[in-house]
């Protein structure tokens, strides 16, 4: 009898607690979901903030001017020599044309302001136009010239007209000029080809990512050429040939540790070894590629080993049974089957290398370089470093460029990863 009441009370206790336990369950589940949602929201905020800041940079404000290509200014002696043509004073042509559009502007300061409306790079636009087709000399032609960055910001709404004049970078009379141009349809936002064809520049409207992109290409080329063969050879050796002994253990421990060494330490290695000790050129894609090779090797080796591991032993046994040597077995049968996995790992390693910044700062790839590099020994910078440099620049227009450069970088990374995923899906075999 006593027993029975006891068990009843236990059941009651359990029943009483159930509601509480269920709500605890629900709460816990909610926390879990919150964690994920927060993570996903962060991804979203990151992308929205960058795209929101950067999409504008794909357009650039340009101003149409009727330029008279006066022979007396460009080539007074009619030599048509390209040296003479490139040294001509194109700014005076622009100034002349501007005063024609704004005949009412008087006074030295006003005229100086007016001339600053056109980018300091516009003269190169004119020069290239003349070099490309010298017959334009002596004629008059309508040319779309780059506006300087403040006017670009005004057109894109980053300089607000409602702000009091004293706090605005562009004063009322300058805004009025823009309005006049707008009325005549002479100022317009057009697709920004400069961004993709120009090197770095101090003037935001002239700055492009071409130089950084080429630098990234050369650096990645060096990295790929070195890290894929070395990584693949290491993976094959460790997985297929290496005896289990202390030496092999040491190699494995080293690889695992290198995978976790902070990237900046690799930069220190590059600076002390490659530049100071071996005397390789600073800022060169060659050194950058070497440093990134050492960094990406662990990724490639680990992925390569996993790929080799997934090839079933029956393949090896069959080949060995047919009389193939150990090396023939690996190179003719195992490696081709493991190759897609290895390539996937390599692409992911390359994507990491493409986004890496810190070690490249150490080896001097932060220099301000206007020229587009032509080889692996030229001074160069890479896309992530370019982003870092622009992010440091005070001009408002650089914020937009930086975000746009980030978008280009992310586009590259996403497409590389997509290729890796595709390779894995297409060639992965389940044995």
């Amino acid at each position, binding site marked *: 009898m006593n027993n029975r009441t006891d068990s009843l009370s236990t059941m009651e206790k*359990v029943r009483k607690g159930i509601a509480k*336990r269920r709500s*605890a*369950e629900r709460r816990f*589940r909610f926390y*879990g*979901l*919150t*964690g*994920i949602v927060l*993570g*996903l929201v*962060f*991804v979203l905020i*990151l992308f929205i*903030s*960058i795209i929101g*800041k950067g999409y504008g940079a794909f357009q650039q404000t340009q101003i149409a001017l009727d330029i008279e290509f006066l022979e007396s200014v460009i080539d007074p002696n009619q030599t048509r020599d390209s040296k003479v043509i490139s040294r001509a004073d194109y700014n005076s042509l622009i100034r002349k044309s501007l005063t024609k559009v704004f005949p009412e502007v008087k006074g030295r300061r006003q005229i100086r302001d007016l001339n600053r409306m056109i980018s300091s790079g516009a003269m190169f636009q004119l020069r290239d136009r003349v070099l490309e087709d010298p017959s334009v000399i002596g004629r008059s032609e309508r040319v779309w010239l780059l506006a300087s960055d403040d006017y670009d910001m005004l057109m894109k709404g980053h300089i607000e007209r409602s702000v009091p004049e004293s706090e605005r970078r562009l004063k009322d009379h300058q805004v009025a000029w823009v309005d006049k141009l707008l009325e005549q349809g002479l100022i317009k936002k057009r697709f920004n080809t400069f961004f993709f064809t120009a090197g770095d520049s101090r003037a935001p409207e002239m700055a492009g990512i071409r130089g950084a992109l080429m630098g990234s290409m050369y650096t990645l080329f060096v990295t790929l050429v070195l890290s894929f063969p*070395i990584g693949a*050879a*290491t993976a094959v*050796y460790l997985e297929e040939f290496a005896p289990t002994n202390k030496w092999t253990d*040491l*190699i494995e421990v*080293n*690889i*695992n*540790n*290198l995978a*976790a060494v*902070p*990237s*900046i*330490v*690799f930069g*220190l*290695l590059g*600076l*002390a*070894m490659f530049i*100071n000790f071996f005397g390789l050129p600073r800022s060169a894609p060659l050194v950058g590629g070497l440093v990134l090779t*050492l960094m990406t090797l*662990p990724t490639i080796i680990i992925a390569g080993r996993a790929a080799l591991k997934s090839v079933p032993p029956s393949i090896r046994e069959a080949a060995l049974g047919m009389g193939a*040597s*150990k*090396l023939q077995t690996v190179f003719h049968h195992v490696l081709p089957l493991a190759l897609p996995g290895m390539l996937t790992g390599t692409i992911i390693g390359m*994507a990491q290398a493409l*986004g890496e*910044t*810190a070690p490249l*700062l*150490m080896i001097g790839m932060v220099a301000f370089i206007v020229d587009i590099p032509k080889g692996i020994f030229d001074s160069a910078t890479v896309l*992530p470093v370019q*982003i*870092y440099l622009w*992010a440091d620049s005070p001009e408002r227009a650089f914020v937009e460029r*930086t*975000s746009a450069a*980030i978008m280009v970088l992310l586009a590259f*990374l996403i497409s590389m990863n997509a290729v890796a995923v595709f390779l894995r899906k297409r060639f992965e075999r389940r044995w």
Partner: protein
Amino acid sequence: MQTPYLLFTLLILSVLAYFIGKRRSVTVVEGALRELHSLPAYYGYYTALWGLIPALFLMLVWLSFEPTWLAHQTVASLPEEIKSLPSSKLNLQLNNIKNVAAGLQVSQRVDPLIVEAAEHYNRLRKISNFALTLVVLTCSLTGIWLAHKKINKDYRARNVVEKIMTGLMILASTIAIFTTVGIVASVVFESLLFFRQVPFFDFLFGLEWSPQTALRADQVGSSGAFGAVPLFAGTLLISSIALIVAVPIGLMSAIYLSEFAGSKFRSTAKPTLEILAGIPTVVYGFFAALTVAPFIRETGELWGWVVSSESALAAGLVMGIMIIPFVSSLSDDVINAVPQSLRDAAYALGATQAETIKQIILPAALPGIVGSILLAASRAIGETMIVVMAAGLAANLTANPLEAVTTVTVQIVTLLVGDQEFDSPKTLSAFALGLMLFVVTLALNVIALHIVRKYREQYE
């Protein structure tokens, strides 16, 4: 010949050698391939390797000693008064000469002495280049000729080729060791130079960090204090904020994904979360400096707080976002490694799913989770770009997350970007900081991997 062309020529030569060797093996046995020890292709490989490897090796050695030799010879040709300059000034002159030689110096006023030296330098380089081309090509051709002579029907070409291939693979796999040795050597060597000037314990326990050393004795404000405690504290502060953000979010999402989520949700949420791991750190840095930091400052001002525009909070928060996927994917792995039998036993006793997770799975997976948190911590400590772009530059010993602090990695970057003098403690201190960073992250990783491995063995 320029190096790339020389390399290309070598490659072409070795391809030719392959066909020569292959042809030779066939003609040696007059087409009766059964008589040959190895397949004809192996004789081809054998010849090609002989044409390539010794020549490549020679080229590598030559090119690594060429700059030193050139510099030495150029200096030797200079007049006595320049030669006797101290080594730092001599290097400056040498750089000048190299710039002129490369045609970089555009300014008109160049010392005629330098121009002459530059011409001498160019002449030497031409000679060296010509000799290199000659030597390398001769070496390659001799190799091919020797290999060609050796081919006969009993020659075990396959065995030799396989031995060489294995040797090359072993060589490749030792690069990992060389890298570690290289890192340790370069960091330790410069650090030792640093500790000769600044005592080790002053560096480790000093409370003041201002690495600007005086150029002149009477200069103001360049005391050159190298106490690294403020940097360690700053690193710790930012990393702790990052972990406070990342551990709960990462852990809860790992639990939800592995225990509650359906396979469909899991297969979209997990890769999306892992996007965070693939975004370059410079992007996070930009995000922290231009979006998060102003946001925090404005929010703080609403409440009347003084928030620095380079607050530790902004950098830590963004770094936390960055390491969420590290925590979540590693924890996911360890939670999945807990045997199903433990879960089944708990359910059989009437536990709810949440109770099973809290009281059975998490305690069982705890060592693995601790390991993953340690790995994430080492990632946070070594992270550079976010703090370079969003944290402060001046050392500041504080625990207030709204103030600007600086970190070890920020200091390494600021000390080493730009011109360096490898005899001043200012530059060398960066290597001492690098040594600390390397030791700490290595220790964290070794401990973490050890814990994870031990834990895995428990359930296998």
